[in-house]
């Protein structure tokens, strides 16, 4: 297993000469007319969206069909991305790692790619040390052949309900990668069009929810086949050479757009650090997480090497497919914010070229085998939050104050009377910190994930659970000129005995304020027993047991404030008061706004604020 083979390549590709090249120059060199590029770019985008659409519509598990925790696209034979569906960003670009990992596997096994990749093959792959984002995200890859030649890949990833790990659905306190469940490395489930029955039987026998997993794999295969057919239509229409040429031009174009923006950040090295709660086994041993961001011309390097060593549990982050993807995401969100800008940035490998992720082997952002790296979403959230924090002084108008920097990702499960498992994966959303022009978003799936919640009515129709409460937290936010967003409070009751694995963090730290704004609130977890006894829970729990009528109470973090709270208009503070989001006491203490008997006292406020 080599260390980050692509990282070196990417650095070499960005010499000074390249950095000074403008987008226009690049395309002129490519000699492609803008109309053709736009037309083929649109065609590729349409293919990726259709692949995503088909997968979501026909899948079984709610984590795909409701939460849309998946990604799909077309890739070159040297594993670069030509297009990708607009899905949760954690998947965007991760497939590159999977395909690289498959090639590495072929190499280790001593087989020639030409021999092993055949028309009609379907591969699955999910090995965390061979490019997988993490093992529950199984990739399906279908080679595309044209006139007998392998010309591209249609591939997708999707989060599966269960892969037979130590605990149902999710897992944290794992000894090593073998405890993650079923690991596949470039495994063929179809060979030249023939179903490989043995591997399907193996899957059926080794996961807790076989109907969902097999149904979802089938949906992934159909989605790849659609991608393959559409790409071949495109090749028929424009010719292979034209398509490949346009693909290269589109990647150059995307790269040039991003380089233009990186150049606007002053050169220098920027740094931010914080501590995560623990590794899920060694309680009260916080884990350092540190982001060092170096801007040099049109290149940007994010180095996570100063973070803690890899943990002895599953609480680690695969470098390829997770650490790198999250860094790409964060830079792109800061510099190419799609809400602010209206040019079309094609999603392809070009958007990764000027960004250089780094993490020393053996640190938690680049674990070495056989360490497990199953649970990584909280660490990448916090990493993203720290990259934004590090750059706050350099580009104050493009950042936000501390986001939740955490997520309570939970699996609930149990068995029915027939002994069949039910598993439900739940993403408990966080919040954003205040922004230059607006308050932080309340109750949204933050940063690098962008899933959908599952309707309460759908949960209650499907599982022995009942929601008692699902709403905004009302116990504070980071005060600021623009305030932090509110996290949620969610209380679920189990109607039968159930088991929970909680993949969370952030019970011990608060989202930071910026430029005079206050800190937000940290997350909280409790087990409320049927008899009323309340137990505090850790942010990570593996296989935690509930009895019928017990409840779990989840409060996610509220974001930090941006700017001096005294600069927030008194009327706006009063509106928050009317909406139950700030108390009269906090209005006075934090904002200098006086509310007496439910009425805003403008004169007293002016006096208190020294106006």
């Amino acid at each position, binding site marked *: 297993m080599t260390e980050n083979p692509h990282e070196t390549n990417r650095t070499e590709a960005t010499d000074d000469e390249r950095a000074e090249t403008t*987008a*226009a120059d690049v*395309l*002129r060199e490519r000699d492609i*007319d*803008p*109309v053709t*590029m*736009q*037309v083929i770019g*649109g065609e590729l985008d*349409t293919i990726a969206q*259709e692949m995503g*659409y088909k997968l979501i*519509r*026909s*899948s*079984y598990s709610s984590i795909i069909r409701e939460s849309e925790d998946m990604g799909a696209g077309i890739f070159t034979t040297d594993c670069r991305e030509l297009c990708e569906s*607009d899905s949760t960003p954690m998947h965007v670009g991760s497939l590159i790692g999977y395909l690289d990992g498959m090639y590495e596997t072929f190499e280790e096994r001593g087989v020639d790619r030409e021999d092993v990749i055949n028309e009609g093959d379907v591969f699955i792959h999910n090995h965390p040390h061979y490019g997988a984002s993490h093992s529950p995200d199984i990739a399906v890859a279908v080679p595309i052949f044209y006139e007998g030649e392998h010309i591209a890949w249609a591939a997708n990833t999707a989060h599966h309900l269960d892969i037979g790990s130590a605990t149902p659905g999710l897992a944290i306190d794992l000894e090593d990668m073998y405890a993650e469940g079923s690991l596949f490395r470039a495994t063929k489930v179809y060979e030249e069009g023939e179903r490989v029955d043995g591997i399907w039987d193996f899957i059926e026998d080794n996961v807790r929810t076989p*109907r969902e997993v097999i*149904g979802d794999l*089938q*949906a992934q295969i*159909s989605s790849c086949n659609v991608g393959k057919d559409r790409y071949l239509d495109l090749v028929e229409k424009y010719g292979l050479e034209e398509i490949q040429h346009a693909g290269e031009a589109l990647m150059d*174009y995307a790269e040039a*757009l991003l380089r233009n923006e990186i150049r606007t950040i002053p050169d220098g090295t920027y740094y931010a650090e914080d501590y995560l709660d623990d590794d899920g086994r060694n309680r009260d041993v916080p884990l350092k997480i540190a982001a060092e961001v170096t801007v040099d011309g049109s290149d940007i390097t994010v180095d996570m090497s100063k973070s803690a060593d890899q943990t002895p549990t599953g609480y680690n982050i695969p470098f390829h497919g997770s650490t790198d993807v999250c860094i790409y995401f964060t830079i*792109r*969100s*800061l510099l190419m*914010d*799609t*809400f*602010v800008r*209206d*040019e*079309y940035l094609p999603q392809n490998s070009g958007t990764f070229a000027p960004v250089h992720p780094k993490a020393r082997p053996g640190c938690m952002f680049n674990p070495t085998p056989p360490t497990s790296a199953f649970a990584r979403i909280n660490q990448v959230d916090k990493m993203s939050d720290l990259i934004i924090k590090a750059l706050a002084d350099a580009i104050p108008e493009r950042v*936000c104050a501390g986001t939740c920097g955490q997520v309570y990702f939970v699996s609930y499960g149990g068995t029915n009377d027939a002994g069949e498992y039910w598993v439900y994966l739940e993403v408990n*959303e966080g919040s*954003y910190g205040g*922004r230059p022009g607006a308050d932080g*978003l*309340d*109750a949204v*799936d933050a940063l690098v994930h*962008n*899933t*959908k*919640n599952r*309707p*309460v*009515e*759908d949960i*209650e*129709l499907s599982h022995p659970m009942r929601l008692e*409460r699902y*709403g*905004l937290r009302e116990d504070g936010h980071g005060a600021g000129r623009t305030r932090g967003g509110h996290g*949620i409070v969610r*209380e679920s009751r189990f109607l039968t005995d159930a088991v929970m694995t909680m993949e969370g963090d952030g019970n011990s730290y608060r989202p930071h304020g910026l430029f005079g704004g206050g800190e937000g609130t940290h997350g909280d977890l409790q087990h409320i027993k049927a008899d009323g006894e309340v137990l505090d829970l850790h942010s990570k729990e593996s296989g935690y047991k509930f009895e019928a009528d017990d409840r779990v109470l989840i409060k996610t973090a509220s974001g930090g404030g941006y700017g001096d709270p005294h600069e927030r208009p008194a009327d706006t503070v009063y509106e928050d008061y009317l909406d139950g*989001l700030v108390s009269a006491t906090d209005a006075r203490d934090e904002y200098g706004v006086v509310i007496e008997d439910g009425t805003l006292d403008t004169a007293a406020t002016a006096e208190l604020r020294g106006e």
Partner: protein
Amino acid sequence: MASKSSTSGSEIRVGVDVGGTNTDVILVTDEDEFTFKTPSTADPSESTITGIVEVCRHAGIDPGAVDQILHGTTVATNALIEHEGARTGLLTTKGFRDVLHIGRHRKPHSFSLQQTIPWQEHPIVERRHRKEVTERVYPPGDVITPLDEDEVLEHAGELVDDGVESIAVCYLHSYLNRDHEDRTKELLQEEFPDVSVSTSSDVVAQFREFERFTTTAINARLEPVLSTYLNRLSNGLADEGFDAEVLIMQSNGGMASVRNVAERPVTTLVSGPAAGVLSAEFEGNHVDEPNLVMLDMGGTSADISVIPGRVLERDPRDSTVGGYPTITPMLDIETIGAGGGSIAWFDDAMGFNVGPKSAGADPGPACYARGNDRPTTTDAQVVLGRIDPDSFLGGDLDLEPERSREALQTKLCDRTDQAQFETPEKAALAALEVANTNMYRAIREQTVQRGYDPREYTMVAFGGAGPMHGASIAEKLDVSTVLVPPSPGIASARGLLTGNVKYDYQQTVSSRLEEVDGAFVDEAFERLEDRGREQLARDEIDSSKWTFRSSVDCLYDGQGYELNIDFDGTDGDWHARLREQFEAKHEAEYGHYFEDDPVELLNVRVTAIGDVQSYAPPEIPATGDLSAAQTTESTVVFGTADDPEEMTVPRYDRAKLAAEHVIGGPAVIDEFDSTVVVNPGWEATIGENGSIKLRTESDK
């Protein structure tokens, strides 16, 4: 209505469609057809009444003689998009006050730190007016906590004291058991008779609380707005001497009585575009072409809809208006940012784009000389010689063609730092190519992706710009026939005349198919049909004109997206039959199906239709010499940006064309509100009703 429709032979009907820029009116008698266009006014009832009065005057018809007025309205849509409406309150299940605020916790933009979210930035109901009530229903519909009636009245009192005019009642699982919502409504109507009340089980009894609650809250918020408007309209029409029956177009493509619509404003959110789809369907049926693609291209956007034998409804889970989910039935219309005002521009990295930036109708294209100097697709058409500047909008608007040329030259040809086009003509051809490709892709998403082969389809192109682009987009799709209806600029108003009264009803079943008893299903359909019968009777439509369409929604147990299947009854082994139909549809839609997995019957649906339309377009004479219709010859540029081709082509006046005239391309047909471009290799045939059929020569 019953008495009037029985004398349909001499019926006088008026269709009036209010758009953002213009109010279009059409009046038909059994012999004649009259049209009128007037600028839309801030209070749309004014231009609506003006339009109706003027078209009657024009036709020499006494207001009292008009039998029916069919109306497409954007009042509710505009109020929603502009965040207006009544001060609204919400009563909801205890613990779930913030469902409307959290939504599906997904951000509209994946890559953005600065975005805002519509339902958080502009809440339909402010948090202070969202009140929780002790009550709870749990599947399969059990009341596990009874409704606290005192709490309902107490909270409603607080809301009313705070100026709330309309209340949405949204309880969890009310699609399974509506008793608590019904009782709450009853209590509110007794105690607060002036407050409007919308319950979620009334508005849209479907599961998924965020979407149902939002749709209901929008309905509550818009109800006072639409009621006021419809009152003003009715009174205004009465003042002018009209006593015609007024019917309103709904998003589902059906007409509904004013009374019904006043209570269901959320069903009118795509009223005007839905009329466009009906117009396309009518055009196609008229020439026996059942498989149609509608292209309605106006100033700022293009509406696209695919009609595979019949109009389709949108998957409710994809339905949003102004960023808010709205899950009441609406026709499947895709709107993309490509119109006559769409701007062609280079971005910082030399990417060439057309739209979504638009100059709209005001300031409009550069050639309008109203302050926009950026080139639009209309400017491209002017530079290429396709739009005749002298006869644009009947010569009502003076175009300055040199401004089109200048805009293309300065913005797309002269910039030295970026890729450039050598001439304005080349830039114009490139802009049209990109705009046409955008529309072509949108159509392909609606056809190929859903298993419809566009080569078997006929395009119906209208709107001011549609007939200029239709043939070029058809070429990309391998579509060989394009229909251009008469006066394509007012096709939506004409579509109103072709609509039937239509109401949708549905009931969630949510059971495994093989466990569902046939008698139970029969009963459910019967109950829904009864509601339809009741409504149609209340609308005074003769029962001989009623039809009912039954369908069911199915999915594999565990999936989240249902497929709608026409239901053909519970006789014989209907379980097996339905399963087979479902599997076939699943395979067509997704490419695979599962032989052994259990199928769930999610919903039964009934559409009640009252056939009230009697539109027959007047025929145009089949006499006259084609050369008499030719006005001039002009230079028009065809070809591609790489290889422009200047051609001298004849221009015709559409008003002078007669049935069976055949015009070989290249040619241009000018008319009051549009221009029809007959591409090289295409041929135009004039139909008996004045519609133009464009065909590629290979297909003649």
